[in-house]
């Protein structure tokens, strides 16, 4: 475990961090719902909503899932996954715009 040798003090510090992240997540949830009531043009709405979601996702991954200090092997595996995930997200592009050009 990356946190195998944590002292009680360190754990307490971590717990404080969790509460801060919790607060941030709640705020961002309110922000994203709030934005949706503005009825922005579709493209801007999508970009904003995905930006906020990515921030929230980033916080969860970084602090709750401890990705902020993880071992190299996990990172390398996740980078690989991320690249393949990106390929997978090209499928809409290929499906919708691959034809006739």
């Amino acid at each position: 475990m990356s946190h195998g040798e944590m002292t009680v003090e360190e754990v307490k510090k971590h717990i404080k961090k969790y509460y801060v992240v919790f607060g941030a997540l709640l705020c961002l949830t309110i922000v994203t719902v709030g934005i949706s009531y503005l009825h922005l043009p579709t493209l801007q709405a999508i970009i904003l909503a995905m930006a906020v979601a990515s921030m929230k996702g980033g916080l969860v991954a970084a602090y709750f899932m401890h990705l902020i200090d993880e071992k190299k092997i996990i990172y390398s595996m996740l980078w690989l996954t991320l690249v393949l995930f990106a390929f997978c997200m090209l499928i809409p592009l290929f499906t919708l715009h691959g034809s006739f050009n």
Partner: protein
Amino acid sequence: MSALIPYIDEPHPVTGVTNAKLGIWLFLASEVMLFGALFSTLIIMRSSATDWPAHGSDVLNVPLATLNTVFLIASSVTIVLSWAALKMKDLKKFKLNMGLTILLSFGFLVIKYIEYSSKFHHEHFPSTSTFYAVYFTLTGLHGLHVVGGIIANSYLLGPGSKMWFTEPERFTGRIECAGLYWHFVDLVWIFLFPALYLL
């Protein structure tokens, strides 16, 4: 038998992780690809659909879903706190937090049930339109992941927690893995929520 398998409770000196942790991350990597394909589908369906609602809020219940978001985020906090409690050798606090996690997940499912039944009540089924097809399939699969999490977490809270007295390190590792899975379920919802309800 498993006694001879090394690095169950201590990290491998070279990789720095335990078997279970590497395993759960590999599993989550595959889950990333699963939801990647589903999000691809969502984008395609939305781009080519003729009757996609202009705003998800026109057809879906945003306040309920927001509450559900809060539930899941809160459960993510409680499960990480339950792990921290084990780190401080506090089994009671672990049980409290894990119990809260399960309670919150049930809350999530109850709200999901209310949402679904009101949709069915208004004769909105997966076959109604591509929007509902995507909505039911994606939230349904996510819901199955929640159910899976509840089963795993309940086991760890109940009979599984006996391991704390024999192999505390290994048990803490298990809770960490359960937490990683649960955070992932939360993470998926964080993207599903705006994609379906808010856009």
